[in-house]
């Protein structure tokens, strides 16, 4: 185990890894890395390596766990045996169980649970390598995995930790700061700045808490920006082609509102003609239904 450093912040205001007090570690992201999962994201943050996967919505068994009017969001945080210096025995621990609970709760306010009553959305976060801040890294990856899986959400969730070392508030703790620091406050936020995960270890005065929350909000905004960039840059080309296509022959691309008319057209033409008239009558009703669902 590393010995406790004498100082965490030098005279120039630089931390042990060269960062300033309000700088986050470098982050690398890749989406859609697992073919069997409905959505997935691999994320590196400092030396953290986490993999998030989403399966769902899917059937939930046993029946007694089903919520009649909502989907269940089930989050499972797990650390690989080899992810830390001292090997972890496989299987859930009390720590991972707690993190799973509060991390799932970080997403419940944003997932539109009423869309899939009785079903379950399973989120799996695997820590392949740990380097302080794994729960926040996992949440950041899970947000992208949920988006990748096409889960309806009010917005993205971003997470970051703030802590205190040498009496100074610092953003995104690294390992020594986490081990020997005076406070550790991981936070997850929606894009509106609503806090959906909050935990704290250590000592902070009320003023430090307020200042710390301001600092971590900025950190979460930076991460939100990264998440947005990853999402938008993934399908960059499609956007351009789409714009050209529109000009050439707009009638080629069926509009979502007209979907109702086309439902029966998979039958042979004679059959569909008979049924088309029914469908046209039905169209307005269907549109009405759709509006209600929003």
């Amino acid at each position, binding site marked *: 185990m590393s010995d406790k450093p004498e100082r965490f912040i030098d005279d120039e205001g630089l931390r042990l890894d060269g960062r300033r007090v309000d700088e986050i570690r470098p982050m690398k992201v890749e989406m859609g*890395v*697992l*073919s*069997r*999962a409905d959505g997935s994201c691999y994320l590196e943050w400092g*030396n953290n*390596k986490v*993999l998030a*996967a989403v*399966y769902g919505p*899917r*059937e939930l*068994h046993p029946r007694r766990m089903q919520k009649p009017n909502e989907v269940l969001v089930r989050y*499972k945080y*797990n650390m*690989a*045996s*080899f*992810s*830390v*210096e001292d*090997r972890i025995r*496989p*299987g859930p621990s009390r720590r991972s169980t707690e993190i799973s609970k509060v991390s799932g709760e970080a997403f419940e306010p944003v997932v539109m649970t009423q869309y899939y009553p009785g079903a379950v959305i*399973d989120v*799996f976060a*695997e820590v*392949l*390598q*740990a380097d302080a801040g794994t729960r926040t890294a996992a949440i950041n990856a899970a947000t992208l995995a949920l988006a990748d899986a096409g889960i309806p959400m009010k917005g993205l969730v971003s997470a970051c930790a703030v802590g205190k070392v040498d009496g100074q508030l610092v953003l995104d703790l690294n390992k020594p700061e986490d081990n020997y620091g005076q406070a550790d406050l991981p936070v997850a936020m929606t894009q509106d700045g609503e806090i959906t995960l909050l935990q704290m270890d250590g000592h902070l005065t009320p003023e430090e808490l307020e200042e710390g929350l301001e600092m971590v909000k900025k950190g979460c905004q930076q991460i939100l920006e990264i998440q947005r960039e990853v999402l938008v840059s993934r399908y960059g080309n499609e956007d351009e082609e789409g714009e050209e296509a529109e000009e050439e022959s707009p009638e080629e691309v069926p509009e979502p509102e007209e979907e109702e008319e086309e439902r029966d057209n998979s039958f042979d033409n004679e059959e569909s003609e008979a049924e088309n008239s029914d469908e046209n009558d039905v169209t307005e009703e269907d549109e009405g239904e759709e509006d209600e669902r929003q």
Partner: protein
Amino acid sequence: MSGSEVISRLKRDYIYNLMLKGEREDGRQFNELRDIALETGIIDKAEGSAMVQYGDTQVMVGVKMQVGTPFPDSPTEGVIITNMELNPIASPDFEAGPPREKAIEMARIVDRGIRESGAIDINKLCITEGEEVWMVFIDVHVLNNSGNILDAASLGAIAALMTTTVPSEREGKGEDYPMPVREMPVGISLVKIGDEMVLDPTYGEESVCETRITISSNQDGSICSMQKSGSGSLTPAQVVKASKIAKEKGEIIREKYLLEI
């Protein structure tokens, strides 16, 4: 029950009919491997690690070492412990919970391949005879199951071991040294569909096959471990044929991926 074990009859018929024509779903020959990718040293916190891909199947193997006590009947030998979890992240069919018979069998097959080949010189893992030896934990973490996680795990295990450093300094037991590896076993699995033996199955092929046979072979071509799995049966001729394929493909994989390490 989405994610249930039931396969649609049409899908089953399709794979079977393809096999009768000598074809496979992804266009491969019966004896053809998918594209394989291997990267080692990706987890710094582990003493050794490897990430393996067989097509879309992705498996990560980590090697961790601890000081422990030897077995009473082998006071100078290090201890190898292989663990494999089929975690639900890797497939809609995997369930949460402690490993069940399939996972345990697979872990033991991977273990057998490493152990019986003598890949690790466990006598060089002795610290103090009768008191302290190195425990080698081989942890297989399946990330995405697109079929044949067993072979991917076997390759990952030997690749991770070959790039492992014994962490003596950390434990105050002298100087670090590379893991004493003296063999490069490669595990090859074939599944039986109808009367044909098919190499490196996809998960679709695994779900319609009756039987699997896994064979590990060494650099000198000798077979060091075998396992038949599943409810069907094999003729002796099929076993011999499978072992020939295993040796041939084992050589190819060894040359392409392991000798470079």
